[in-house]
């Protein structure tokens, strides 16, 4: 709650100051303890969706919320710098390509679109469904975190322009 009041005051006094982030030991400690469990739950829901409640959409949303939690606890800027810009786009495209790829593979093997039984591996149907769930999870994770950072970036207003340069330096440093 104090987050927002300080944030509003900041925006009021200096346009586009530090944003809504306020360092809080309670939030940081809580997130540090909770985040590994939430990430594990998200991956479990994603991987185990074929045999219990859940699936790619749900698991992806839970796993994506871990990044959001980290950003709330440790600041949006550091978390954004920590994520390579290509990762989110790559995950997004890889998820769609996985799904389409499995469908195309079944077509090539002479079956109908997404007719898993024609793939000549052990338990083809179960493994194909797991793979597709993972693809959906990748799409949902990347879109949720992407939307979050897009909204957070929009909040910076005029300060958003120098950002591509920042990113360029970051990628150069990492490369």
């Amino acid at each position, binding site marked *: *709650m104090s*987050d*927002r*009041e300080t*944030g*509003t005051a900041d*925006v*009021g006094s200096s346009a586009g100051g530090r944003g*809504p982030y306020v360092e809080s030991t309670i939030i940081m400690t809580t997130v540090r303890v909770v985040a590994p469990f939430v990430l594990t739950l998200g991956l479990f829901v994603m991987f185990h*969706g*074929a*045999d219990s*409640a*859940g*699936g790619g*959409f*749900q698991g992806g*949303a*839970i796993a*994506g*919320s871990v990044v*959001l939690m980290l950003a*709330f606890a440790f600041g949006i800027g550091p978390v*954004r710098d920590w*994520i390579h*810009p290509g990762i*989110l*786009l790559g995950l*997004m495209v890889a*998820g*769609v390509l996985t*799904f*389409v790829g499995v*469908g195309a593979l079944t077509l090539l093997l002479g079956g109908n*679109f*997404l007719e*898993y039984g024609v793939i000549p591996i052990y*338990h083809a*149907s*179960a493994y194909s*469904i797991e793979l*597709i*769930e993972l*693809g*959906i999870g990748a*799409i949902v994770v*990347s*879109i949720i*975190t*992407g*939307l*979050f*950072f*897009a*909204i*957070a*970036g*929009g*909040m910076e207003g005029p300060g958003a322009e120098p950002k591509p340069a920042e*990113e360029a330096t970051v990628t150069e440093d990492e490369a």
Partner: protein
Amino acid sequence: MIEPLALPLQTTVSALEAALLAFVLGCAVIAAVLRDVLGVIIAAAAYSLGVAVIWVVLRAPDVALTEAAVGAGVTTLLFLLTIAKTVNPTDERSLELPSVGSGAALLAFVLVLGSTVPAMPAIGGSPVTDGEVSQYYLEHAHEQTEVDNVVTAVLAAYRGFDTLGEAVVVFSAGVAVLVVLQREVFV
């Protein structure tokens, strides 16, 4: 392995369900009339959590997971981000009650929607759970798709093409955001 849905035909509302419905309704009304946006967001998150519990009570854990993760979790965080630019109303009033006209429109809308409720089938023994298609899925899903969760079997195998469309819709939403913002990367 796959047990048929043995829900008793239910036409009354139990105490738990009544309490949940009252909680959800209360949260919705609070979210509508409160002036403080932070309070509205918290009320909306509580509403989503209540709805998620209702889904569990109605034995739809897959939907409950989605509601809890997306409705109560991610949406709340996105809303919290967006209100950082807003300012608190300065006057003392804490409630924003609807005017007479919009109140009347609201009442009419509730009455129209409420008139459809008696047409819904009772929980358990409905055309959905007893229908030919549902029974086919329940009986054949495991042998045909090798997965135990019939919901996953329907989503990923029987209705796989639909799910591909949904996944592409989510993908397109991300691409659309990038196009609108005229950016090439999210972060």
